[in-house]
């Protein structure tokens, strides 16, 4: 098992290097004078000089790359051209919001998606199956922000059941230590605020999680159907095992496998979709920050955000692969 993890880590290195090269090149291939291209309307002679120095544009290319690499690894991910704040600090302030949102969406999509998929597989061909498949189809066909807007209109504007903006009531005052409000409110003993945070999480999580929900439901259904037809399930039944045992130990233990892989892949989509969701729900996270950065042509922010998200995605996939190997002994012992 340990060897497998090491192998996976080693395999990830070329990708990380490639990623760094890509992002390094990204800022340098912007058309035109870098000063104009990057700083845009914020350019001043002093800023230009600082930029030249920061990017090391007078040095040979490979030296620039090494410099970029070293800076990145030491946490210097550039600064905003708008307010000159370094990336890392700003990012860490906003990241917990995105984590909460992504976690909410993930819980929603897995918590609802897998049972739905199982149900559809059990009643395959019936109307329940058709309904679930239809819902799943709808889920992948509706853009995250359209669904978000629709939810806001229905539940916020028309019904007024749930809040549609922000992460918590704007008037709330309490100690926010970690930035993850679910945890902070609990630690501060403010159960009322905790509930408020949860209420704010509902609609954005549903919107963001809709596509992964649909995909997870689909793959679970397909996987369960396929496994249910395998010979070893027939063997299990012929041994006189209880149907529940057959279902859990023989069908699901094998059906999980493709689902796990898919869940890992969906995280990438979630990170991207967070950008749109945060815009719709005025959610204070990295997504909104990136959108603002786009409008302001704040390239260093865009570049570093992409880098960080990609690294997170790679890490998540590594964890998923390890999880998959834990579940599937054939991979483990290769």
């Amino acid at each position, binding site marked *: 098992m340990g060897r497998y993890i090491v192998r996976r880590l080693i395999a990830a290195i*070329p*990708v990380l290097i*490639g*990623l760094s090269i*890509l992002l390094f090149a*990204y800022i340098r*291939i*912007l*058309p035109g004078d870098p000063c104009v291209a990057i700083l845009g309307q914020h350019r001043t002679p002093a800023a230009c000089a600082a930029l030249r120095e920061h990017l090391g544009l007078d040095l040979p290319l490979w030296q620039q790359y090494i410099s970029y690499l070293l800076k990145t690894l030491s946490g210097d991910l550039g600064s905003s051209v708008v307010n000159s704040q370094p990336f890392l600090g700003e990012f860490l302030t906003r990241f917990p919001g995105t984590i909460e949102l992504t976690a909410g969406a993930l819980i929603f999509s897995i918590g609802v998606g897998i049972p739905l998929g199982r149900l559809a597989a059990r009643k395959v061909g019936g109307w329940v199956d058709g309904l679930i498949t239809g819902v799943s*189809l*709808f889920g*992948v*066909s*509706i*853009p*995250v*922000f*359209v669904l978000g*807007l*629709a939810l*806001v*209109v229905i539940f*916020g*504007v*028309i019904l007024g059941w749930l809040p549609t903006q922000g992460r918590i009531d704007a008037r709330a005052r309490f100690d926010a230590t970690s930035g993850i409000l679910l945890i902070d409110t609990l630690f501060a003993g403010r159960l009322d605020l905790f509930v408020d945070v949860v209420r704010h999480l509902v609609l954005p999580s549903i919107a963001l999680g809709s596509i992964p929900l649909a995909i997870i439901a689909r793959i679970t259904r397909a996987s369960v159907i396929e496994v249910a037809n395998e010979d070893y399930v027939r063997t299990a039944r012929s041994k006189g095992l209880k149907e529940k045992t057959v279902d859990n130990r023989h069908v699901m233990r094998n059906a999980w496998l493709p689902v796990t892989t898919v869940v890992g892949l969906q995280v*990438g*989509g979630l*990170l*991207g*979709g967070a*950008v*749109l969701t945060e*815009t*719709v729900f005025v959610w204070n996270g990295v997504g909104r920050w*990136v*959108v603002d950065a*786009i*409008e302001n*042509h704040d*390239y260093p922010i*865009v*570049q570093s*955000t*992409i880098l960080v*998200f*990609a690294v997170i*995605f*790679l890490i998540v*996939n590594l964890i998923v692969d390890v999880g998959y190997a834990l579940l599937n002994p054939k991979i483990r012992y290769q």
Partner: protein
Amino acid sequence: MMFRAALVDPQIVRASRGLWGDAARRLRRNRPALVGLVCIVLFALAAILAPFISPFDPYAMNGSSLDAPSLTHLFGTDLLGRDIFSRVLYGAQISLFVGVGAVVLALLIGGVLGAIAGGFGGRIDGVIMRATDVFLSIPSILLAIGIVTALGRGMVQLMFAIAVSYAPTFARLLRGSLLALREADYVVAARTIGASRMRILVRHMLPNALTPLIVQATLVLATAIIDIAGLGFLGLGPADPRTPEWGTMLVDARRFMQTAPHIVVFIGGAIVISAIGFNLLGDGLRESLDPKLKR
């Protein structure tokens, strides 16, 4: 009822018309796929016939602001008094054009890369695969955002950005197919009887490798329409802010949700119907092109 066997040679005769013939026949019986086809036809007709059936000029601001749907303005009007129905029709043009363009471009880029990787194998394959890994590690929206931010706004840039985010998937798909097919029994058999490499590639490998690609392209087209709208919504759509691109039109929808919820319904509905169409068709194609299914 006479037992068939008693009269004729009991071979079950149901002529096979080859992969495509069988697929077409199975597709015709697949009801969801037909529904999808209808949606796609609607979408395409809206796009193609927009100049002819559009009741108003999509740029003309002749209605009052944010009107609810009425007989004159079927979908209502937007902030500047423009007829939303007309704008949706013209918006279909943009979605279709950019979407199809992006997918075709992605097929070209990804296809060529995948063919090289799968055809040559070895070091080249390794390098190309690492490169696709890099691109695949970036969430596709962010990749597209990055490219459009760098290249500037515009329809071609949009097309290119979306194409780049899908190309790696196509590359992997084709490469995977080719690698698997190289070892497939019937390819080895063809080699044994002395067929040339070119002939093997064209007659044996490509037809089988292309079908998953076609299925994927159809499904990707659905996502492309959605992604294009997403980028428009973020303000990265075509440069001219008056352009009736569906995602860009939805920016207003958010600002005026209280007073004008109809915007979301109709524009969102257009996007959903188009996407559902391609998804249904893609699923139908996948089922009917699978030669292993007996029916």
